[in-house]
């Protein structure tokens, strides 16, 4: 017997589904209450976040904070104990295959086959992504060219430098132009120049509209690349915001004035008490004062000191860094 309300129910379902898809469409990644325990180790203790399409989320945290576990869940490599994650509109548990078609993963350990050449590595990934032989071949050559690996393309990857391997690893993640890119500590262990190279590449991908989730221990990296940052520690989110929001929670810019000796510094600290909470720094030859009144504070301070015959030898501006944020939030140094 057919329920006379069935067509209505179907219609409501359809509308609901459409609405679902719409809200999901603006979020390339959404994770809800992810929990993952390995025996006694609580890698994730209920982590929720969303990454709007075309933006970069930085997942920041010390070793063992649960960053890699989150990436492994989002890439369908690991199933969460509880919680739900949707990537590019597909559920990681119920539709892992569609998720895998939507993502590129570049890992902590440049996951390239050392015995294959750069070209063969890309060819293999293309084939396993079910590109035709010719499409995989064309794409491999294209990527080698983009990543400045053409000259090394026919050399086994074991002859590559660390930076070249990372570039090849990242190129392998891009074979199918995935809309969502997951980068697990993409520049760990790289020299500054190679790191800068890789940052430029990632920034360009983002400019092209790719959504990126990036885990890192380098605060500079998150600061530089991420639109939003989540700080996780012991499997929990301890802070969230843009880099500047996170920094501003920590306080203000400080002016540091350095003097020739402790006597001068002490005198200056006494003089400047009225202008702001100037304090003698640990080294006893410089004083630090918060820049509450903007640049005028510096002018007033220097005038006051000049009147008393005190001339600082150095002047520094100290911005709070993400390191400060990190230390204050997790109590751990990176």
């Amino acid at each position, binding site marked *: 017997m057919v329920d006379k309300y069935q067509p209505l129910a179907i219609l409501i379902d359809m509308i609901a589904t459409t609405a679902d898809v719409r809200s999901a469409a603006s979020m390339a990644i959404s994770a809800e209450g992810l929990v993952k325990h390995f025996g006694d180790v609580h890698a994730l203790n209920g982590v929720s976040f969303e990454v709007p399409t075309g933006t970069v989320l930085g997942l920041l945290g010390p070793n063992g904070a649960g960053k890699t576990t989150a990436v492994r869940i989002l890439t369908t490599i690991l199933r969460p104990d509880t919680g739900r994650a949707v990537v590019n509109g597909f559920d990681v548990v119920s539709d892992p*295959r569609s998720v895998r078609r939507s993502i590129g993963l570049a890992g902590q350990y440049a996951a390239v086959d050392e015995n294959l050449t750069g070209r*063969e590595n890309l060819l293999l990934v293309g084939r396993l992504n*079910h590109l035709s032989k010719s499409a995989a071949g064309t794409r491999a050559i294209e990527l080698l060219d983009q990543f400045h690996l053409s000259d090394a393309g026919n050399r086994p990857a074991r002859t590559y430098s660390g930076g070249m391997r990372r570039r090849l690893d990242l190129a392998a993640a891009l074979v199918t132009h995935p809309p969502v890119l997951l980068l697990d500590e993409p520049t760990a262990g790289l020299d500054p120049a190679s790191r800068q190279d890789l940052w430029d590449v990632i920034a360009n991908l983002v400019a092209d509209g790719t959504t990126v989730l990036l885990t890192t221990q380098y605060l500079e990296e998150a600061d530089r690349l991420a639109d939003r940052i989540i700080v996780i520690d012991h499997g929990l989110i301890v802070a969230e915001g843009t880099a500047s929001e996170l920094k501003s929670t920590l306080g203000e810019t400080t002016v540091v004035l350095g003097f020739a000796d402790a006597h001068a510094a002490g005198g200056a600290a006494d003089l400047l008490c009225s202008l702001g909470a100037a304090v003698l720094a640990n080294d006893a030859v410089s004083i630090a004062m918060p820049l509450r009144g903007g640049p005028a504070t510096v002018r007033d301070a220097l005038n006051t000191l000049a009147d008393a015959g005190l001339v600082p030898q150095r002047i520094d501006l100290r911005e709070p860094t993400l390191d400060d944020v990190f230390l204050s939030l997790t109590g751990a140094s990176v």
Partner: protein
Amino acid sequence: MTTVSLSTAPTTRPVAQPGDGALWAVRDTLAMTWRNLTTIRRVPQLLVFAVVQPTIFVLMFRYVFGGSITIPGRSYVDYLMPGIFVQTCAFGAINTAVGLAEDKGKGLLERLRSLPMARSAVLGGRVAADSTRNVFVVLLMLAIGYAVGFRTHTNVAMVALGVFMLVLFGFALSWIFALIGLSVTNGEAAQAAAFPMLAPLVFASNAFVDPAKMPGWLQGWARHQPVSAAADAVRACMLGGPTANKVLISSAWSLGIALVLAPVAVRRYRRL
């Protein structure tokens, strides 16, 4: 320092095909087989190393112990070599464990598990490549056998069947070692785990000596286990005598091991 600039110009946007079903599983397996064989081709020393150890066994048993071992009805070298072939395939299967453990340790499995490829293809491609490799290793060992006096007494077709039985046996053991390879974290650990498992199979068998001279409690095991069954079948194929039954028993062992362990290993891979 080179700066890497990624052009924003539109590049070819390759269209990936859906990739479900058995046909794609076969294609993915072939792609992985190609990858593994390329590695073997690129490091040919490994193939040479693969025959060094069995060759030492050949020399040891042929010239050191052989004089004290008598096998009724045939020369010892004829008895010995099929046993050596089986031993070679058994120890060769360790490569499956080492290869997978290394892929796992280097993070390659993580990437492969994030690709829309068939879940069975990583293991299937490994086992298929190792079986192909076994064909070459067995042929090399046949040549070494000839050099020390081993002679086949049947025809080419039967010898080929013997080689096939060896490869089938290696294929079966590869599934056991696939499971071991996925359970450890590096090649050395895989190697260490493999030897104690293989020793009772290979040495407490009829591969080198007649079980009739072993203590009674050992004879039952030595006669009825996969290594002995394979050695019996290969001897029959290469030396003559009643063959059908021995080939069937060894095939049953090999297929049985593969049918039970392949799904277990793939399941393990899915849940890494």
